[in-house]
């Protein structure tokens, strides 16, 4: 279970293996929390982007089996646009942000379902093979409007979740500016634009596809931990 770097091994599309996820970037995902954002444990709406790391053990390719831990029973599939960094991005200005983007890819971010955004255990998000990236990187020039793409999740061929990259709290350029204000992104790093509210749950035996219009489609089977 590892991303076939061969598919990406042409600069500027070589992947570094570092993937940063973003949460609550869909207006609907934040709105769904309603007044709870001001209650404990959160006490205030998020100010900075809500980010997490998908470490290298999580990386997988289309076609790989995604293992569902026996203790979880099901996983949540987070369909996200992956922004592939093309050159060192530090303190990027919103108006220049696309100059730092090599291209885009599709990411299926699988996690053990959890309700709290406060301090979820890393074991819910860092499972081996839980971050499927690919199937290729589409050059930036071919995607003039990354902030208006259809995103679909299919289970056994039927669409179960349809969303769009439009109407984010932070669009691609704004997110790059806000993230690189405090952390530099390197060529090949992947920054996820965010997962929509209502990410579907999937279980062993399901065939899961994630598609983002012109960028591509991932196909993965979910399997039990111990067959």
């Amino acid at each position, binding site marked *: 279970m590892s991303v076939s770097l061969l598919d990406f091994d042409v600069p500027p599309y070589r992947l570094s293996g570092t993937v940063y996820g973003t949460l*609550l970037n869909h207006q609907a995902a934040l709105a769904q929390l309603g007044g709870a954002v001001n209650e404990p444990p959160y006490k205030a709406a998020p100010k900075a982007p*809500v980010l*997490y790391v998908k470490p290298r053990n999580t990386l997988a390719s289309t076609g790989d089996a995604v293992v569902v831990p026996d203790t979880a029973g099901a996983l949540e599939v987070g369909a996200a646009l992956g922004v592939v960094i093309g050159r060192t991005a530090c303190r990027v200005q919103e108006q220049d942000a696309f100059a730092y983007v090599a291209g885009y890819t599709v990411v299926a971010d699988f996690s053990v379902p959890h309700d709290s955004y406060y301090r979820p255990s*890393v*074991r819910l998000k860092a499972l081996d093979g839980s971050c499927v990236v690919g199937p290729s990187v589409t050059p930036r020039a071919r995607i003039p409007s990354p902030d208006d793409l259809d995103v679909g999740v299919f289970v056994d061929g039927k669409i179960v979740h349809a969303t769009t990259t439009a109407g984010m709290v932070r669009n691609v350029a704004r997110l790059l500016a806000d993230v690189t204000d*405090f*952390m*530099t992104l390197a060529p090949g790093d992947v920054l996820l634009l965010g997962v929509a509210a209502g990410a579907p749950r999937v279980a062993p035996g399901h065939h899961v596809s994630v598609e983002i219009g012109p960028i591509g489609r991932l196909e993965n089977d979910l399997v039990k931990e111990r067959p």
Partner: protein
Amino acid sequence: MKRARVAYSGAIHEATPHGDQLKLADGRVVREDQVVWLPPFEVGTIIALGLNYADHAKELAFGAQEEPLVFLKGPGSVVGHRAVTRRPKDVKFMHYECELAVVIGKAGRNIPRSDAMAHVAGYTVANDYAIRDYLENWYRPNLRVKNRDGGTVLGPWFVDAEDIGPTVHLPLRTLVNGKVTQQGNTRDFVFDIPYLIEYLSAFMRLQPGDVILTGTPEGVVDVQPGDEVTCEIDGVGRLVNTIASDEAFGR
């Protein structure tokens, strides 16, 4: 054996201690201020512990833990010995965290506690800075607090595991401008190294170069531009770092 990675005279070298100087692999002996110290190993996944000393948990008003508080960091935050770390002008509380860094040497999944130490290649010292002003209650500790450029200082030496031995009870301390501000001993871990390796490898495959930052004891204080912060762990090393202002970074 202790070894460092340094940049000197146009190349990256492995270096070993030579009195109070350094000996490069090619035999040259240089002063330690003539080199640029790099992180002493190729850093893989950075796994960090919150509140792994009972006293620090108490200091921050935390109750008993059911499982380790683990968070992940990206490689972009890492700098070496003698590097500078920026303190933004607008913050009120930026603090160091002196931590034993455990470097994985052998890959593994579902590693039992009894085998865990065989997966450790060695150790170094970490200073894992935090800016508490930026703490938000969303996926704590959020990356703006804990994954900042220059916020993870590693070094100066990579120390082989066999030099430390199977029982890792090491006194550690932090000095700010030469004055001791933080003290502890790794024997006071809430979750010890074998436990952490067993816990982590139950859901993630550990790989060579992955590093576990094992948390910090009580005694974190605010640091200001110009302060020299030294994190020491007996037998592992003495990691020096200086706080710089926004001006030094052109902002």
